[in-house]
């Protein structure tokens, strides 16, 4: 794989930020309690990640090496503030659910990590693709986790007030799935499952 699709796909699978690079975990565990919050958090992260990658890449030739980190932070925190204010204004319910995690995007390791490791060294289009790919990798895991945890833990999936799936009244949802320990547990099991699949694939080759 090479070229732009390569940049894009890399973040989704091979260097998935959550499952492979082990960064950006905090928010992923916290917001994956519901599909809805996973979705909005992912959108916020994709936006901030892509935009800051673009801006940092664009400024990379004029950014002095020794103060690059503060500059990255200023860029990232500007976009984070935008998301913060937009969500607060238009989706107050979701904002209050996501709470601390929106402002904490600014220290989300994915974003600063990509800025430092990629955007600062590559051109704008590549950086944008990298941001999108990484964001999508994050989104993918978040959606799976959000879906599974919400479905098992509450017995139903609701999105923007509409109930999409309902397991029926005889299903007694284990609250464990949406609890704090459940987040770690689900994530650990998901990683184990992927490892298992990968091992099987490797053996098949």
């Amino acid at each position, binding site marked *: 794989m090479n070229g732009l699709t390569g940049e894009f796909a890399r973040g989704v699978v091979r260097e998935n930020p959550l499952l492979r690079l082990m960064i950006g975990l905090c928010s992923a565990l916290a917001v994956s309690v519901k599909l809805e919050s996973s979705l909005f958090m992912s959108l916020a992260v994709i936006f901030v990640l892509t935009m800051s990658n673009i801006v940092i890449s664009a400024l990379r030739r004029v950014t002095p090496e020794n103060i690059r980190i503060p500059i990255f932070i200023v860029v990232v925190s500007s976009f984070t503030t935008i998301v913060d204010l937009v969500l607060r204004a238009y989706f107050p319910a979701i904002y209050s659910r996501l709470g601390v995690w929106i402002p904490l995007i600014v220290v989300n390791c994915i974003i600063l990590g990509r800025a430092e490791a990629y955007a600062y060294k590559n051109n704008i289009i590549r950086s944008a693709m990298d941001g999108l790919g990484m964001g999508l990798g994050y989104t993918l895991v978040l959606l799976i986790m959000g879906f599974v945890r919400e479905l098992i833990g509450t017995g139903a999936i609701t999105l923007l007030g509409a109930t999409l799936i309902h397991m029926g009244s005889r299903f*007694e949802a*284990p*609250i*464990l*799935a949406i*609890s704090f*320990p*459940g987040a770690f*547990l689900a994530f650990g099991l998901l990683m184990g499952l992927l490892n298992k699949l990968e091992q099987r694939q490797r053996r098949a080759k």
Partner: protein
Amino acid sequence: MLKVTSSPHIRAQENTRYLMRWVLIALAPSALYSVYLIGTNALSVILVSVLSCLGVEVIWHNLRDGKHVSRTWWELVFLLAIPLLGMVPALGAFVQWIECVAILVVLWFEREHRFDGSAAVTGLLLAMVLPPMIPWWVPFFGAILAIAIGKEIFGGLGYNVFNPALVARAALLISWPRYLTAGWFKPVVDASTSATPLVLFKNRLGAEVSAVYGPLLFSNTGGCIGEVSAFLLLLGGLVLAWKKVIHVEIPLAYLGTMAVFAALAHNDPIFHLLAGGAMLGAWFMATDYVTSPLTTKGRILFGVGCGFITMLLRLYGKAPEGVTYAILFMNMLTPLIDRSLRPRVYGHIAKPVRGGK
């Protein structure tokens, strides 16, 4: 042919199975008594829990070791499909018995498997910390959690960090709180309430609870299956101490700390020792080898910690009982305790250099 092995060439009689067998023997009076008092509900919880633990262990080991893999998968599907029979109205009430028989059939197929007895102990302990009046699938899932997440995923016997039975209980408590905080055994004498003494105490109806030593000791008190008789549990614990199966410093430190704490907080120490899961926890849960410290000093610290947290949670916490979390919390500290309280090696002047990279 002369056999050549490394010294020593003689071994003590005790083995892992022997130790596990004694734990089961020590728990048996309490378990049987609860079945006698409570009836089939207790029997069903105990059977489902013990058999499921054994079943999960066999299936996990077979898949892990690659033994009879296809047969094992069929067994797994078979056992997991049986709960679906609960949908059939006529069968609904009997599913637990069908499941028990099914597990027995599977165990018969796997009869050459070497059981070390730890799964049976975990299963019985799990049953003892559950209320008797719960749907049968609660201990079923509990057993899966205990053996799979509590133990086998860490590498099996001896490698788990937390007490498997208590992991399962805590997870079940989060998952289905309404079953785990109700469904207590109803005492025969005082049928007007189904609350446990600790719940009564929590609700500040505690003035008269001190007068219930008799019921606490000998039955007739609300609570989990394993809480029907503090006396029988104490007896079992003493048997284990006498057979040198458990290290007696843990229960002594545990119960001693509880008593002192209670007395300092102007509570009735004896009530706190007899009520709830204190006896079961101190003698059977906290003494689990795998999850408790290795040195005498460490074990005393462990017991004191358990007793302190238990009383803290009982007196100032939200829930009436704290034994489960106290022991789980101290389990978590066990590697740290083992690391910090290493015995001074013979001939070494100062404390040994702390381990670590």
